[in-house]
């Protein structure tokens, strides 16, 4: 009996010889992707949707791409869709009977690994073999390199892990706190005493909505920061 039990497969899909179990977060992820695509197509016709999309584009350009080298429209689309995807995935956890896919470590780890491999490949493409030189800071005597390089490599590898864990822990812990408060609510014997846990639950729920948006912003901001680090001149 634990929180890390496997979920029941809603249906299975046979794809390229693999049997994939489709669980609820996967189905939700597909619906969210379809929703975002439909929303952007609607923005071509409806003026209100176009205004929202223009505000989102201006927001992404100001926050994520203001100090981005080699800025092209590809990166704007990439970070805009990453931000919208993560934000919507966080927010669907608040709808009854649905769960947030980002409360699953598999989801956040996939996104973080994707961003990490993108940054590594971009760095190798732009800098070639000098990409490995970033692990050796300037002016270090030759004898200290076998000591310092593993520390630098571990620090570098920790960044995508922290990206995944931060989003997962925020979403999962927020959900757990609501569950704990509901348990507390059910344990109060007097009827008028149930007022206090209810106020706490509403307060925490509003705070969790805020945290959803903030964590989506932080994820995209740090992804942009890591990718632009890989693009700039290494030490």
């Amino acid at each position, binding site marked *: 009996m*634990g*929180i*890390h039990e496997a979920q029941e497969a809603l249906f299975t899909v046979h794809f390229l010889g693999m049997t994939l179990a489709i669980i609820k977060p996967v189905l939700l992820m597909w619906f969210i992707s379809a929703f975002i695509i439909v929303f952007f197509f609607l923005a071509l016709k409806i003026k209100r949707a176009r205004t929202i999309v223009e505000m989102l584009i201006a927001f992404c350009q100001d*926050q994520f791409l203001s100090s981005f080298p080699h800025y092209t429209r590809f990166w704007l689309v990439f970070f805009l869709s990453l931000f919208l995807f993560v934000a919507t995935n966080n927010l669907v956890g608040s709808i009854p009977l649905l769960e947030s896919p980002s409360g699953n470590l598999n989801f956040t780890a996939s996104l973080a690994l994707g961003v990490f491999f993108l940054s590594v490949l971009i760095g190798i493409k732009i800098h070639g073999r000098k990409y490995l030189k970033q692990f050796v800071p300037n002016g270090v005597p030759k004898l200290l390199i076998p000591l310092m390089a593993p520390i630098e490599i571990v620090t570098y590898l920790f960044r995508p892990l*922290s990206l995944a*864990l*931060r989003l997962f*822990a*925020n979403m*999962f*812990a927020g959900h*757990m706190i609501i569950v704990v408060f509901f348990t507390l609510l059910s344990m109060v014997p007097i009827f008028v005493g149930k007022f206090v846990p209810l106020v706490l639950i509403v307060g925490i729920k509003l705070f969790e909505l805020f945290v959803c948006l*903030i*964590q989506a*912003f*932080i994820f995209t*901001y740090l992804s942009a920061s890591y990718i632009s680090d890989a693009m700039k001149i290494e030490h």
Partner: protein
Amino acid sequence: MGNVALAYLSSGLAIGLAAIGAALGIGLIGAKSIESVTRQPEQLGTIRTLMFICIAFVESICLYGLLIAILLIFTAK
């Protein structure tokens, strides 16, 4: 002490100690950012964005401790 009791005890310690560090860090960040806004009120937007980013860093370290605490509760036997 049995295994389960030790696991519950260490779970409480994990989140308690993590919360101390997080509270101190976020308090310092808040104080410094408010102080810098009073020095330059026109930079409010930039300072607010940077403050949220720094708070997310500190908060994520506290949440690693919370993850360990929850893991200990649910996998102790």
